[in-house]
């Protein structure tokens, strides 16, 4: 086959761009998924006081500002070598649990859920949150709005603003909460637990009770055997806010567990000439290409990965769901990518339960929410689990605390290789002997929507309306077919 160079400069603005190359038989030889990435954040931050980072990184993309804010806050504390008071940690974690509930809810009902709830054969016009509401009932929309409202309220109470928190400073927070606020937060948390249980029931009644969907979930088309990564606490239970990074191999065995500050000894980034985004991989396993298996350094970081990488959930109701999850899918680890949607709901329940645990913790209203750092700032790493995957912020400063260098590995970046592989697998099963199945775009969308990818402000993923262009090339590298949706 000819060698083709794809010039990454010719990016399509705001679209996912996929190039598929066929071999002589008309079957898929290779696929390439190109991302027009946001650029220059590191450059932009150099020269800023590091305590601005929790406010600046809020704005990397408008979608998970809370995750960036918390990771940045932890990195800033590490730069100043300060251990913040227990109350400050708990308040930040409480804010974070409320955010998780909002975010996971929105993804399931507005984005990923419609694939199942409406069915993959449902007309594109119905496979969205409106379709879900009409099928499941009007009350579901009301609950989704309510969950979001409660989540935003908690973020505002603790973080100072509804979506873009601003209360984290080096050494802790600028304010605590009153008993009155605590009562309000607890009440909203208890509602969130019920809502999470309701959502798991919706999934059970609509998805798991339908053999067609179960086949889809278990099917090979969306299955890959890779390593799995997630943060765990001292008992190896899933934790979104703090802990060590644990990676298990495709058989489920622990491969490595490391402190956030040591991430660079374990993760490297591979560069390909045809895309802006780099591919993180496990350094000590090595880069073997975009392939599955225990010898390939590719790993995934998603709700499913976190469940796979842990020994369980730290709260009782979520733990029961975790056990049901693995029993139903017949073993651990689970490799089927569509199961990410279910894992997301198990996490939703844990986040709600932990929300109430923190809201009823005796320290949560303490006035001891800040300590003044005294050490000279140098360098620090902050890692949290963003809903989309492990999020790493690493800052270097001079002795005044002015930023000299920044390195970020954001949630979805971890998954760039797995996403690319999922797209290739979907394409390979739907393009045979040069015949392209109509459902190609549909299946490709479903493949990467499961990862809840965050390609910055460049992609707008409404099911069926994600701007996508797929170009199919013959064995000589000449484009022979272009399939588009929502692209002029």
């Amino acid at each position, binding site marked *: 086959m000819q060698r083709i160079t794809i010039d990454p400069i010719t990016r399509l603005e705001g679209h996912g761009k996929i190039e598929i190359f066929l071999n002589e038989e008309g079957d898929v030889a290779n696929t390439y998924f190109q991302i*027009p990435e946001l650029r220059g954040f590191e450059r932009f931050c150099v020269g800023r006081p590091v305590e601005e980072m929790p406010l600046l990184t809020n704005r990397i993309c408008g979608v998970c500002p809370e995750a960036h804010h918390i990771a940045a806050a932890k990195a800033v504390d590490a730069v100043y070598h300060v251990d913040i008071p227990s109350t400050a940690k708990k308040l930040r974690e409480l804010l974070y649990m409320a955010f998780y509930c909002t975010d996971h809810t929105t993804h399931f009902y507005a984005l990923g859920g419609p694939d199942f709830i409406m069915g993959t054969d449902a007309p594109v016009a119905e496979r969205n949150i*409106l379709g879900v509401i009409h099928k499941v009932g009007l009350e579901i929309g009301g609950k989704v709005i309510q969950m*979001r409202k409660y989540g935003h309220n908690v973020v505002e109470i603790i973080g100072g603003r509804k979506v873009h928190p601003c209360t984290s400073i080096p050494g802790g927070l600028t304010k605590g909460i009153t008993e009155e606020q605590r009562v309000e937060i607890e009440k909203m948390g208890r509602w969130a637990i019920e809502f999470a249980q309701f959502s798991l029931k919706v999934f059970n009644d609509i998805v798991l009770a339908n053999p067609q969907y179960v086949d889809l979930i278990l099917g090979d088309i969306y299955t890959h055997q890779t390593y799995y990564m997630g943060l765990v606490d001292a008992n190896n239970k899933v934790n979104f806010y703090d802990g060590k990074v644990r990676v298990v191999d495709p058989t489920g065995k622990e491969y490595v567990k490391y402190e956030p500050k040591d991430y660079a000894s374990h993760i490297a980034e591979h560069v390909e000439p045809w895309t802006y985004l780099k591919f993180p991989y496990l350094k000590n396993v090595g880069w073997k290409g975009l392939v599955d298996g225990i010898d390939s350094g590719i790993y995934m970081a998603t709700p499913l990965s976190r469940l796979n990488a842990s020994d369980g959930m730290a709260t009782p109701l979520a733990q029961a769901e975790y056990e049901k999850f693995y029993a139903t899918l017949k073993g651990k680890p689970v490799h089927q990518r569509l199961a990410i949607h279910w894992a997301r709901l198990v996490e939703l329940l844990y986040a709600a339960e932990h929300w109430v645990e923190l809201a009823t913790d005796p320290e949560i209203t303490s006035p001891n929410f800040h300590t003044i750092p005294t050490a000279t700032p140098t360098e620090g790493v902050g890692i949290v689990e963003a809903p989309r995957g492990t999020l790493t912020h690493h800052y270097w400063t001079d002795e005044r605390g002015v930023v000299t260098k920044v390195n970020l590995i954001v949630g979805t970046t971890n998954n760039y290789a797995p996403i690319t592989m999922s797209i290739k697998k979907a394409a390979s099963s739907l393009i045979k002997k040069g015949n392209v199945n109509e459902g190609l775009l549909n299946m490709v969308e479903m493949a990467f929507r499961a990862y809840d990818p965050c390609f910055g*402000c460049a992609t707008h993923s409404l099911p069926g309306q994600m701007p996508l262009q797929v170009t199919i090339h013959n064995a000589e590298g000449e484009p022979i077919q272009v399939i588009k949706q929502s692209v002029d």
Partner: protein
Amino acid sequence: MKTLIIGLGNPILGDDGVGWVVAEKVQAELINPQSAIENPQSVEVDCASLGGLSLMERLTGSERVILVDAIFTGKQPVGTVSRFLLDELPDLSAGHSASAHDTSLRNALHVGRDMQVPLPDDENVTIVTIEAEAVYDFSQELSPAVAAAVPLALQQVLDLLAC
């Protein structure tokens, strides 16, 4: 009519922040005693980096909404100022009325109305757009053609308020 004007965008992402700049100019007009705006007390101005459901939630209780935002069609000169009703937007992926992680503003408004959330009708949601150039690079500056378009976009908003 109670009117809410929101500058949308990301203020540290170059041209993507033009909505905020225009909104700030509208705010200055509102508090200017010599301003031509009638009934300034019925006008509220805000800046937001929101889309989809979050943006819909912000519109709750308004009778009329004017959004100001960068757009990237690639088909008109950088700095071109246009105005659309929500349904007329040329492409759902343009601008920030959609969000990567939930849904388009149009769908979000339908959801909200189904839920009896008080929201403006689609024909009372107008979007003033400025064709942008550099929306992928982090910067607090606007590119020259986009910066030059700010007074024109401001005038569009003031004309809408005068209706």
